[in-house]
């Protein structure tokens, strides 16, 4: 629950800062220190990193550094906003995490992927195919994802498309917290205008002339939005010659590095 409340506490911490000159402290020199003295319960945004649960490494060092969990939030809804969810953009961004999560005896559930997930590429990315479940759910997509999350039997759930009401998103977020797994929801970028209970929302685009993603942090609970990152996928097949030279079967190490 402490995670849920943190954004409000962040606001509470910022407002008195502006008013502080009119309230000098009894002992301290700076206004902020005096405030902290008077209100020992006052929460400072910087401290949040240490109280959040450790994240799932994303496989991209720059992204891990940016996110307050040090990776993907380990239990919660993650929105990945793309221009056209039908293009399947963003699976490569999640791939290293899927590879890490596949070590546990839990399923990786893909609900309504836009195309056939291509097994040889997933396996090369380190995904344990035996853990993978692809469900075609249509209208029952939200239900299927919730079942997967709530059951605790999934290490991660990925969903594509669909229209999401605020209530449905909240249920998904709660299910993810309950089941202790991240839920990656790939949505149309138009949804960025609407609020969401997801602790993390990223906007995704492509990198020109290179394999990788342009990532914009739209929202992160306990951290600042607005960061822009260019994440290159190492060894992805635009530089095909280098891909060929790598030993087949174990290219994951180069991807997740």
């Amino acid at each position, binding site marked *: 629950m402490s995670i849920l409340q943190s954004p409000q506490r962040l606001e509470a911490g910022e407002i008195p800062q502006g008013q502080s000159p009119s309230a000098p402290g009894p002992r301290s020199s700076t206004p902020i220190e005096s405030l902290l003295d008077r209100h020992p319960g006052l929460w400072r945004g910087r401290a949040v990193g240490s109280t959040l649960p450790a994240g799932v490494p994303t496989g991209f060092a720059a992204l891990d550094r940016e996110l307050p969990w040090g990776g993907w939030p380990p239990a919660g809804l993650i929105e990945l906003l793309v*221009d*056209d969810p039908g*293009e*399947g*953009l*963003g*699976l*490569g961004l999640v*791939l290293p995490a899927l590879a890490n999560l596949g070590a546990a*005896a*839990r*399923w990786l*559930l893909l609900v309504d*992927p*836009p*195309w*056939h*997930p*291509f*097994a*040889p*590429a*997933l*396996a*090369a*990315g380190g995904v344990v*195919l*035996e*853990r*993978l*479940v*692809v*469900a*075609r*759910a249509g209208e*029952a997509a939200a*239900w*299927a994802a919730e*079942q*997967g999350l709530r*059951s605790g*039997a*999934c290490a991660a759930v990925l969903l594509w498309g669909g229209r999401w009401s605020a209530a449905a998103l909240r249920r998904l977020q709660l299910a993810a917290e309950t089941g202790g797994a991240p839920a990656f929801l790939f949505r149309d970028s138009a949804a960025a205008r609407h609020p969401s209970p997801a602790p993390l929302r990223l906007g995704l*685009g*492509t*990198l020109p*002339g290179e*394999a990788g993603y342009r990532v914009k942090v739209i929202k992160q609970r306990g951290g600042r939005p607005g960061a822009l990152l260019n994440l290159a996928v190492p*060894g*992805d*097949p*635009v530089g*095909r*010659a280098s*891909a060929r030279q*790598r030993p*087949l*079967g174990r*290219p994951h190490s180069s*991807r997740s590095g």
Partner: protein
Amino acid sequence: MRWLAIHLPALPLEVLGLGHADQTPLAVSISRRGERILRCNPAAADCGVRPGLGVGAARALCAGLRILPRRPGAEREALERLAAWSLGFTPQVSLAPPRALLLEVAGSLALFGGPESLIGRVGEGLADLGYQARLALAPTPLGALVLARQGWSPVEGLCPLVPDGPALRSALGGLPLAGLGLGLGRRELEDLTRLGLRRVQDLLRLPRQGLRERLGPQRVDWLERLLGESPDPRPWYAPPPLYRGRIELPGEIELAESLLFPCRRLLLELAGLLMGRRAGARRLDWRLVHGDHTETPFSLGAVRPQWAPDLWLGLLRERLGRLALEAPVREVRLAVTEIDSLDLGSPEVSPDLFPRLAGAGRAPDPALLDRLRARLGAESVRGLALIADHRPERAWRWCEPGESGAGIPRADRPLWLLPRPQPLEERQGRPWLGGPLDLGQERERIDTGWWDGQEVARDYFVATGTRGARLWIYRDLKGPRGWYLHGLFG
């Protein structure tokens, strides 16, 4: 030997209805010396309807009374299904038609924590199934039957537990002769009463030889078996290799959700049978029979053999939730055609023991798959496996989740494959998709598959779309040399 008798006084009624708790007055009639009421439910009894009453009189007493003819066949079926269910308590079960079962429980008492606890479990189970039952434990089968028939019910906590022969003798002694079940006619009873013989103990005090002459040898034999003086072998019930159960509904049910309750009864019966055989089922075939004799069939599946009724009930709830009934349902049937013995060492056998350990270091929990499949359909929940083939569309296949394949992981492949290659326009000699596509430097030729008639000859390129998406496209080297989109790098 310790015998537990299960007497089912309301069986004729229960096989026809959802149970005695029904609000509508319901009665079963038999044609013996005119049509008479055999049994009625409490709602009918409140109106004054009693067993033995003529049908006409019963109708006069209770205007809304629904009278159904007795169904001996259905009673027998129900009794056999209950016998299968009670195999969960002991392997030795014997039918005592028309309305009773005998369980030899000497070997089960310790397992279930003593007679009271065992009887409590049996009584609760029967109540759960919707049967009214009277139970009695005695050293002889006939003794248990006679005592069970006397009207004690486990609900009132008055179930007779008779430990040995002398106790049985005293328990039976106080019973009136008429209720013993010796098959005495009214004239004979009057004769005995005139002799001062009213209770069982009066009869037992008499010399056996004289009794034999007065009552006939068969009745004395019966008495001796009752008291355990002569052996009383019983044929053991052999469960059918498969389970087939059905419930006729008292009225037509239009809401699929309302079927859960009767279906639960079938699941509980099945669970008893499976437990008794240390087995589970992987597939349940249901059939909903409508008023016009059309049927709605559907199946529930589990990845591993399962017996627990709650698990199946959960799956059934999902399935019924998305079932559109085209007509009201009159009857529910359940068939299990394959029974698999359980691996007794596996944690699923006793799911309440160490539930956390069940998933650790093993395959993931299959229950989730079962639940998803119950609603989405079995074909909508699949896994992926590799195949060793260079043709992209043949380098993988759908499979059962958790199944492994043998193939080649390829880092230079896209994460998404189109179900079938999508033809691309060609403009000025270049492939076109909303704009000209930039082809990468590299070209990969896949020319293989001549041996099975699915030959491909293609040059693959990684192209960049107008919006920056990276696409996997190829030029067909056969025929008109067209361009196709085959995958997306995501």
